């Protein structure tokens, strides 16, 4: 198992050719100036350009490092040749890479020759997984591990295919199946289980950066219907929807004349949306970038988003290619698809509108009266102030208002620019009268200014009619080119202290004369009160008659087709030439397939889904989910600096297999799990550890820690609490939620703390692969969390026996599917003997916390 904080997942030296190494050095150290920008007229990003060189001649003499100007510049040892790069010189290792490469004749593989950009080789006759691996192992002199024992295999298969441990009955059935082909039968059973889709759907949701909310810049916008997309993914996998169709539906399900595919467009409709986090142009460009990134890395293993600001440094993707793809998403819109008949939608919207209007009417009534009342009380301000000093002559004043004035005057002096004398102790009627007169004047001035500003702002808006493009996002959010409408128009205000005095008495929520809406009715006369009751009642009735909103899908739709202009240096405000929508030429036989029908989304979907890279990436991800590591260990990057498979033919054949078997994911899984390679023991071996410690050649299976979800689900399974229903709305992931973790709310804004602790990836971007960490905070969860304590109590109840030996055995069978060893019996007995009333729960907690429970061999 890999610990990702230790390793950069990339091509190691063993798997890259010398020109790749040199290319990487040049890219890292030289291309900032000497690629697209061609500083000093010199480019170092193709062999031809290097041979041509700059004004001072060729940069390269193949086979002769000492005569190559490039080498002289980086060696910094030839007078008259400018030392390069400016700043930190190349390391000795870097220099050697370049030197060796030139000495070897400076081979420069044509980009088009990169293995992953080739057409898929057809499936070889009689292809099987194991012979290919066996040949490779023999060549390395590596002995393969024997098959794992049956118990291990059953656990491995259950967790890998369903994300759940077998129940006691399930385990016994498989374990006691003495006939030939027991494993194939078990595999078929598990592939047919509804839990298969839950486990494999979750794998895809990592790639799909599935989240159920976004942050708008001021608030969290929840997506309460997001689960419909999640359920579609689960059911697509359960039904073994062909993988090409699976991809197409998610990119263009709205254009495929099959309503059952519509939920799939949640891949685009569920964001991430960046709303008002930055100016609209920037936020919309960032959203398109997310789509380009998710599609190209997630589905094709090509890092096209690297070309947002400049041509790709390693792969043949130009900046134009990036904007050509981004244009497809600019030409697509967010759309909500109601799941009820139009009439019902109209009815709900009508009712909602009526509620909103009634609420508005009520609030306006209360606010108008509140303002009127405040003005009518202004001539009594002096009396209220004096009432706070001596209440006796003010018995007629409403106590609630006197109370508000008391609170107001209890604020420190700095809040009261005109009450210095009062705070100095002169709490006299004269002071109060003067303050009252001042406030009445300010109130009039404020009213006049408001009226004047209103006229001025309206006039300014008319005078400067802005052409505003509106894009609607989830939650009815409208994104317009103008970021903060109206805020650009200057207005007038009061002098500071006068405004503060107004605000503190009439304006802010705690101001004594800013009557809260709920307080206003008390001060109304009888007819007004009757009117208020009428309005309030109407609102209440309408609210009661408003059902919860109908379900709808957050999906994609066509928008005005638009070819984007190149964003210079990735800046959406710095526009270059228009780029017609097309598929990257390097990935479409050099032609740059046009994506011009409508948004181009349908063409994109078809091209992506049937691309050789899509099949390779999918086969690799399936392998990764069954081995913990892909054949290519950069599953979202098959480009030049991505990893190379150790046994290239294996991945190639699996990908072809996927295509010829009608894109059946289940068939591919079946083929892999029935191979010897999958079934090997995960134990180490002297020879294996010495020659191939990373297990690139598959001499063993990999031991894996359960991911966050199966870990939680396994605890619920063994405690007998698991609710196995499939699908439905998400719920807060509490300790008592008995549903599978998949059904917990998945927030982008505030990821679940426990799941994050167990390495659930952030849902902000498409996830290449999960990492595995092992930290004390995880152990605090085992020690003290409500969740583990509940599970332990439940398990404790299930296994408790008067005969402790039998109880211990029951616990081992339930949690670990095996009998305890005599030593484990003895340890258990000693523990139970020394523990009190809660002994069984405490014992269960230990076993739930054990490595054996969390790791699959």
């Amino acid at each position, binding site marked *: 198992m890999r*610990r990702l*904080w*230790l*390793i*950069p*997942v*990339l091509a*190691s*030296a063993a798997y890259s050719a010398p020109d790749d*190494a040199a290319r990487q*050095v040049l890219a890292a150290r030289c291309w*900032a100036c000497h690629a697209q920008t061609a500083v000093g007229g010199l480019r170092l990003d193709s062999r031809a350009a290097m041979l041509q060189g700059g004004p001072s001649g060729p940069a390269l003499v193949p086979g002769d490092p000492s005569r190559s100007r490039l080498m002289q510049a980086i060696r910094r040892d030839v007078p008259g040749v400018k030392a390069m790069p400016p700043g930190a010189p190349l*390391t000795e*290792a870097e220099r*050697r890479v370049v030197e060796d490469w030139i000495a070897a004749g400076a081979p420069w593989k044509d980009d088009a020759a990169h293995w992953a950009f080739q057409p898929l080789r057809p499936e070889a006759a009689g292809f099987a997984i194991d012979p290919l691996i066996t040949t490779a192992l023999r060549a390395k002199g590596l002995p393969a591990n024997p098959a794992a024992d049956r118990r291990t295999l059953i656990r491995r298969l259950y967790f890998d295919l369903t994300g759940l441990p077998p129940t006691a009955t399930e385990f016994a059935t498989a374990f006691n199946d003495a006939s030939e082909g027991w494993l194939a039968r078990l595999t078929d059973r598990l592939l047919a289980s509804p839990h298969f889709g839950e486990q494999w759907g979750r794998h895809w949701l990592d790639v799909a950066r599935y989240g159920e909310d976004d*942050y708008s*810049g001021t608030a969290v916008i929840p997506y309460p219907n997001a689960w419909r997309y999640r359920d579609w993914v689960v059911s697509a996998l359960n039904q073994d929807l062909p993988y090409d169709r699976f991809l197409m539906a998610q990119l263009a399900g709205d254009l495929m004349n099959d309503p059952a595919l519509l939920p799939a467009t949640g891949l685009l409709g569920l964001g991430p949306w*960046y709303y008002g*986090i930055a100016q609209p142009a*920037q936020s919309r460009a960032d959203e398109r970038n997310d789509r380009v990134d998710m599609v190209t890395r997630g589905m094709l293993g090509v*890092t096209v988003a690297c070309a947002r600001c400049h041509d790709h440094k390693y*792969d043949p993707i130009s900046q134009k290619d990036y904007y050509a793809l981004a244009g497809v998403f600019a030409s697509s819109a967010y759309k909500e698809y109601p799941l009820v008949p139009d009439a019902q939608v109209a009815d709900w919207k009508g009712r909602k509108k009526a509620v909103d209007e009634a609420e508005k009417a009520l609030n306006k009534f209360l606010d108008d009266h509140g303002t009127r009342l405040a003005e009518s009380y202004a001539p009594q301000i002096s009396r209220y102030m004096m009432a706070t000093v001596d209440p006796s002559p003010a018995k007629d004043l409403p106590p609630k208002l006197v109370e508000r004035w008391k609170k107001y005057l209890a604020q420190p002096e700095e809040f009261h620019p005109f009450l210095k004398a009062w705070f100095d102790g002169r709490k006299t009627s004269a002071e109060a009268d003067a303050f009252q007169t001042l406030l009445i004047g300010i109130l009039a001035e404020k009213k006049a200014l*408001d009226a004047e*500003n209103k006229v001025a702002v309206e006039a300014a808006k008319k005078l400067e009619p802005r052409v505003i493009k509106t894009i609607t996002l989830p939650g009815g959010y409208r994104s317009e080119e103008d*970021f903060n409408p109206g*805020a*650009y*128009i*200057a*207005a007038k*205000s009061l002098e*500071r202290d006068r*405004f503060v005095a107004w605000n503190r008495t009439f304006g802010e929520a705690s101001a004594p004369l800013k009557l809260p809406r709920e307080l206003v009715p008390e001060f109304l006369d009888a007819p007004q009160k009757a009117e208020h009751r009428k309005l309030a009642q109407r609102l209440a009735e309408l609210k009661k008659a408003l059902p919860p909103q109908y379900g709808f899908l957050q999906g994609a739709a066509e928008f005005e087709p638009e070819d984007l202009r190149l964003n210079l240096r990735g800046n959406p405000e710095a526009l270059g030439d228009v780029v017609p929508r097309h598929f990257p030429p390097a990935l479409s036989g050099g032609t740059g397939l046009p994506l011009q029908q409508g948004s181009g989304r349908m063409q994109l979907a078809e091209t992506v889904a049937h691309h050789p890279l899509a099949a390779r990436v999918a086969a690799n991800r399936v392998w990764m989910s069954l081995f913990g590591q892909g054949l290519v260990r*950069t599953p*979202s990057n098959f480009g030049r*600096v991505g990893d190379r498979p150790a046994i290239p033919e294996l991945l190639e054949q699996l990908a072809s297999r996927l295509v010829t078997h009608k894109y059946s994911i289940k068939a591919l899984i079946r083929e892999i799990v029935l191979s010897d390679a999958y079934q090997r023991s995960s134990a*180490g071996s002297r020879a294996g550890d010495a020659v191939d*410690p990373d297990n690139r050649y598959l001499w063993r299976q990999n031991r894996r820690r359960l991911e966050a979800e199966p870990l939680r689900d396994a605890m619920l399974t063994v405690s007998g609490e698991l609710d196995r229903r499939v699908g439905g709305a998400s719920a807060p992931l509490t300790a008592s939620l008995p549903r599978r973790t998949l059904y917990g709310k998945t927030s982008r*804004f505030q990821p679940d703390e*426990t799941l*994050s*602790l167990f*390495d659930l*990836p*952030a849902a*902000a971007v498409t996830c*290449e692969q999960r990492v595995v*960490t*092992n930290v004390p*905070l995880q*152990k*605090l969860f085992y*020690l*003290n969390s409500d969740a583990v304590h509940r599970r332990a109590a439940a398990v404790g109840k299930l296994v408790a026996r008067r005969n402790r030996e039998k109880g211990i055995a029951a616990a081992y069978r339930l949690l670990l599917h095996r009998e305890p060893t005599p030593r484990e019996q003895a340890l258990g007995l000693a523990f139970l003997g020394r*523990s009190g009333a809660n002994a069984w729960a*405490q014992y269960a*907690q*230990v076993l739930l916390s054990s*490595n054996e429970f969390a*790791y699959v061999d």
Partner: protein
Amino acid sequence: MNLPMSTNHAIPAQVHPRWTRREALSRLAGGFGLSALAGMLEAETNPFAPKTPHFAPKAKRIIYLVMNGGMSHVDTFDPKPQLTRYNGQPMPGGAPKTERSTGNLFASPFKFSPRGQSGVEVSELFPRVGGLIDDFCVIRSMWTEVPNHEPSLFMFNTGTIQPGRPSLGSWLMYGLGSESRDLPGFVVLCPGMPVVGSPLWSSAFLPAVFQGTFLKNTETDPYKLIQNIRAQAPLSAQRRQLDLLKQLNQDHAAARPGDSQLEASIEAMETAFRMQTEAPEAFDIRKEKPETLARYGDSEIGRSCLLARRLVERGVRMVQVYYGNSQPWDNHEDILVLKRLCGRTDPAVASLIEDLKERDMLRDTLVVLGTEFGRTPAVENGSSTRLHYGRDHNSYGYSIAVAGGGIKGGTVYGATDDFGYRAQDKPVHPHDVNATLLHQLGLDHAKLTHRYSGRDFRLTDVHGTVLREILA
């Protein structure tokens, strides 16, 4: 061969790639003591194990105070006599575009005076910090891209304006690990939640355990601060459980030799057990003397600064403190609110600096008094009748102050124009500040990279220059 693209800071260089851990241990056992072996095992299995920086560090930790909302520089650390002189007049040549409409130039209502030996001018809003100005470098030429909170908060925290990149603290965890075995290495404090929230301390594509541990410290009870820290059983009973667990796990590991993860898991449980007693103590500011609490001030920022000090004393690598819920420093309407904000911040920051000095920790602790951007020298006067005594966002120029950790104190770096609108002399971007902070911690910002999906990512993207002039 040491390929440049595979230079990754976190590779344990002492382990030969071809050796398994077990082999390495046995081959090296002759030459190393047991502790070296344990250290090596730890480096391989514990993501938080202290790691060797690129070069000798000047600082070991950071306390990053964020005046969230946008602290006005022309009222605090950037005196502008011309602004006073031209008060009420239009900005010559027009004002740059900010979020909202602004009117005429608006002099600071606060007085500046030279402070300390160095005579750096500080506003009357920071009397005690002013008294310690000889410990600070005031950077008066900060600028950032966007005059909105969210992108600017993202920028100084993660080096980009959108979610999805690791934060400074996460990079430190990745590059240096933590010196505390019993506390999280990167702690974020806010009495409430700043705008944007958790993406600001996200580890993004770095391992999730490197993310900031967020503590909403409106609570002072440490048991309410840290998830699952309260022992749910008597420690003696837990110990009995852990003894059993350890035996079972050791048997399990013995049957699977050479798997360091299994051993790391055993170790992590022991650490967790210790944390239950040690962490609450560290997080409990009620253990401080009442005089100390009073010195920091009876305020949220006071309590946060005091807690920050307790945490760095115990080896926490980075503590980030947000002043308050949402964005208290977003003073669009009334700049006099600064009296209250600074009135609380001044004693808190000054006491923090004093305490660090007293413990001889200021020399290797970087204290940043930062913010996401500054505010306009012109008064804001947009659209409705509101109070026009405030300032709009200003991303073109602002100030931050940095103390300790090998920074040259009593200095001013860079300058804005005559009115404080734009960084003019030696402009400094948050990338430069981050590069400098990493540099002081012994990390080369250009080399602290993580290979993710086909390219090497850095905190400073492809930018950032270490501000050598401000280094002592």
